[in-house]
């Protein structure tokens, strides 16, 4: 069963006194004038931008150096463990293709993978 009691309105929620309509109108008019007012930028934005802290840009050499380090790491692994790399690639291809493949086929796949990796690296490291 719902209550028939109605909450007493808060003092501030009471409707405005009609005698104060002139003040309400004056405040609303002042508000409208305020919102219609547009201040010309007049160099304000430039002043704000000039006061911002300098951007913390990464050194220009950092990205190429990182890419070079990753490439060197890959080459080191390939040279240190040539049989391992060939076996891994051969097994992967065997699983993927479901049949044994030739060395030339593996070479083609490796080249394709290198091209893909370089393309991806070039995309990631591109300048915006």
């Amino acid at each position, binding site marked *: 069963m719902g209550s028939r009691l109605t909450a007493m309105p*808060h*003092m*501030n*929620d009471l409707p405005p006194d009609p*005698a*104060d309509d*002139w*003040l309400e109108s*004056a*405040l*609303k*008019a*002042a*508000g409208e*004038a*305020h*919102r219609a*007012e*547009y*201040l010309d*930028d007049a160099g*304000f*934005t430039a*002043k*704000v*931008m000039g*006061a*911002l802290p300098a*951007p*913390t840009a990464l050194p220009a050499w950092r990205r190429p150096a990182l890419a070079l380090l990753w490439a060197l790491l890959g080459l080191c692994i390939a040279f240190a463990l040539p049989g391992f790399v060939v076996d891994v690639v051969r097994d992967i291809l065997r699983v993927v293709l479901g049949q044994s493949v030739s060395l030339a086929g593996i070479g083609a796949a490796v080249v394709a993978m290198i091209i893909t990796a370089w393309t991806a690296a070039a995309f990631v490291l591109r300048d*915006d």
Partner: protein
Amino acid sequence: MPEPPQSDAELIARVVVRDDRHAFSELVRRHQSAVRTTLRRLTSGNHALADDLAQETFMLAYRNLASFRQEAKFSTWLYRIATNAWLADARKRKEELLGDRDGDVTDDAPVDSGDDAHAGSNVERSASLSMDMARAMAVLSDAERAAIVQCYHNDLSHEEAAQVLNCPVGTVKTHILRAKQKLKSRLAAWARD
């Protein structure tokens, strides 16, 4: 063909993710007028102080943009920063502000609407009331003036104003009520018309 203007949210994302200064300058350009005019009202027409505080507002916005959760409008968030900057400055300058008011608009006598204003056209009368209103606003307390500026000048709801002023909605309503009582007293001559 020119690109369509990006939304505030898109510009904010560019600033946060890539520290895109062009995007931030666009945000400043878009909102500078609203922030500066609001601060001019809050500082009772001190344009130099208002612009200094506006600059501080945008600097703080830049530093804290990553913490902006988009729960409110970006402009409302800026108003909050601006109001906090103004309140902090007002606290520092309290003595100085009181001194300025003594020599400026602190006489407690009600504003006289003046025979000229009454006799003039509606436009003149409106301009005269507007000037008297600006003078009367200067005698409000900081909190009362801030509540009036956010609710009437920036057209925020009481809930939004409460967010900006960082206080309960009931407190905003109380500030507005008290402000209106003071304004009514100061502008009594206009009520007789």
